[in-house]
């Protein structure tokens, strides 16, 4: 496909529009994200940021337009197939499998990768036991890398909030994504935790070879780590640029603070 040749574009949103009844939630949205980039999506509440994520992950099918991942048209794919293709996400409000252990949370995504059938699992055949052990080892390795290995046996719901956020990212990483979508990762964090999170995001991007697309209200985080920022309001892109450019853009200031009347 043409996009693959365009110098490592990972995600392309091509004139994406989605309507819910009469409401145009996202209007004619175009965006290219290149491999390894860290791109921020900001905008006032209700601007349609999370809707953009939901379209990328297949939770919503766009009314028109296309979504390309590594050159492949994934518009309208089922969410599990999009995940298998290499896109993972986290949520604005943490959505862990609270009743499962920390380790099991990262193992859920291994489910599809296991070749063993249901019966061999039920009867614990050697082939299953081997795969199971490998999956556990991979899960523990991942928890080690995000600093949650000590908590592997705890119930996910019992972790402190900051750790839950970290686990949610680890769980997303467990699907082996190449593109990671983070929806307000710093929501509810204090400045100290946010600083740690910023380092964490940069570290996992390098370690796991990720491309990161994130939504965030915390301007310190967005301005601190994003290389490129897109601003939307009422579903329409109103600006794009480096953190410096965005901070001085009159359209952005107007969208956030409201326009001055003359």
């Amino acid at each position, binding site marked *: 496909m043409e996009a693959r040749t365009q110098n490592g574009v990972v995600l392309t949103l091509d004139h994406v529009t989605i309507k819910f009844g009469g409401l145009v939630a996202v209007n004619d949205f175009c965006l290219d994200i290149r491999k390894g980039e860290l791109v921020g999506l900001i905008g006032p509440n209700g601007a349609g940021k999370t809707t953009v994520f939901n379209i990328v*992950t297949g*939770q919503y099918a766009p009314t028109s337009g296309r979504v390309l991942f590594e050159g492949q048209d994934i518009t309208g794919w*089922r*969410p*599990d197939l999009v*995940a*298998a293709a290499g896109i*993972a*996400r986290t*949520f604005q*409000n943490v*959505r862990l*499998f*609270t*009743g*499962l252990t920390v380790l*099991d949370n990262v*193992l*859920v*995504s*291994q*489910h*599809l*990768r*296991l070749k*063993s059938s*249901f019966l061999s*699992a*039920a009867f614990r055949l050697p082939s299953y036991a081997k795969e*199971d052990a490998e999956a556990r080892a991979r899960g523990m390795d991942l928890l080690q890398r995000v600093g949650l290995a000590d908590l592997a046996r705890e119930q996910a719901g019992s972790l402190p909030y900051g750790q839950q956020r970290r686990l949610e990212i680890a*769980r997303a990483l*467990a*699907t082996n994504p190449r593109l990671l979508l983070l929806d307000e990762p710093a929501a509810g964090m204090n400045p100290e935790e946010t600083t740690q999170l910023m380092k964490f995001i940069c570290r996992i991007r390098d370690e796991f070879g990720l491309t990161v697309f994130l939504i965030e209200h915390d301007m310190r985080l967005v301005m601190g780590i994003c290389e490129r920022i897109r601003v939307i309001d009422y579903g329409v892109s109103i600006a794009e640029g480096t953190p410096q450019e965005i901070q001085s853009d009159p359209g952005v200031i107007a969208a956030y603070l409201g326009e001055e009347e003359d």
Partner: protein
Amino acid sequence: MTLETLIQQLMNGISLGSLYALIAIGYTMVYGILRLINFAHSDIFMVGAYFAFFFVAVFHLPWAVSAILAVVLTAAVGMIVDRAAYRPVRNAPRISALITAVGVSFFLENLGLVTVGARPKAFQRPDVMSKVVPIGPAAVSGVSIWVPILSLALLALLLFIVHRTKVGMAMRSVSTDIETTRLMGVDVDRVISYTFAIGSALAAAGGIMWACKYPQINPLMGIYPGWKAFTAAVVGGIGNITGAMIGGFLIGLVEIMTVAVLPGLSGYRDGIIFTLLLVFLLIRPTGILGEPLKEKV
């Protein structure tokens, strides 16, 4: 009451309760995942009993083979019901799925009436089930011994599947958050399909053992056991597997013991159970083990 009748009635209650528990699992698992009361579940129970009846009485297969074949086939019927009736309305409002479930229930009952007829059939139970076993001073029928043993073995197998296998883990994650499980790359429809298979297999096992206990089967035989198992699932805390087991044994014991202690009330045994359902719905709708309701965002 003499010790002898007490032991007999206790065994009777436990065996009835273990059957309710087996059926209640199917209600509670489907509810836990889809928030759907699968009204057709009681008829799946009936289908299981009929399959076993046909394999034994018509094809003259050995008992164990018939029972296993019946369980496997009934599991398949459960998967077909999900695929044909419930999956098409998965994204429809919840009330549509509920009405579909009532429709499937009527369909299966009437399909039974048309194909095998309304006349009850005598169910030949294996000899071990009718043999009388002495326990202390009491003589207890084989059914009351074997049904709880087999049921407990199946319940243990179920807990193993749910807590120790990948499919079980997927079921638990789907029941917490179906959308997020999808985003983990899990084919949720397949997990739901397995859930129906397991629930239906247990219902079939329950149906076969029920027919051993009350050896007359008819196409409407599932209705009352179904409602009582549903009561058990609610009392235990709907959506909670352990709760359904506890609820099942509780309902079975309450039903048998009220009649044993107050024989004058034997005509009201169903009424007593359904009163219990209403009381729980009014006072503790989340059941014994259920968590307080929280609205999903």
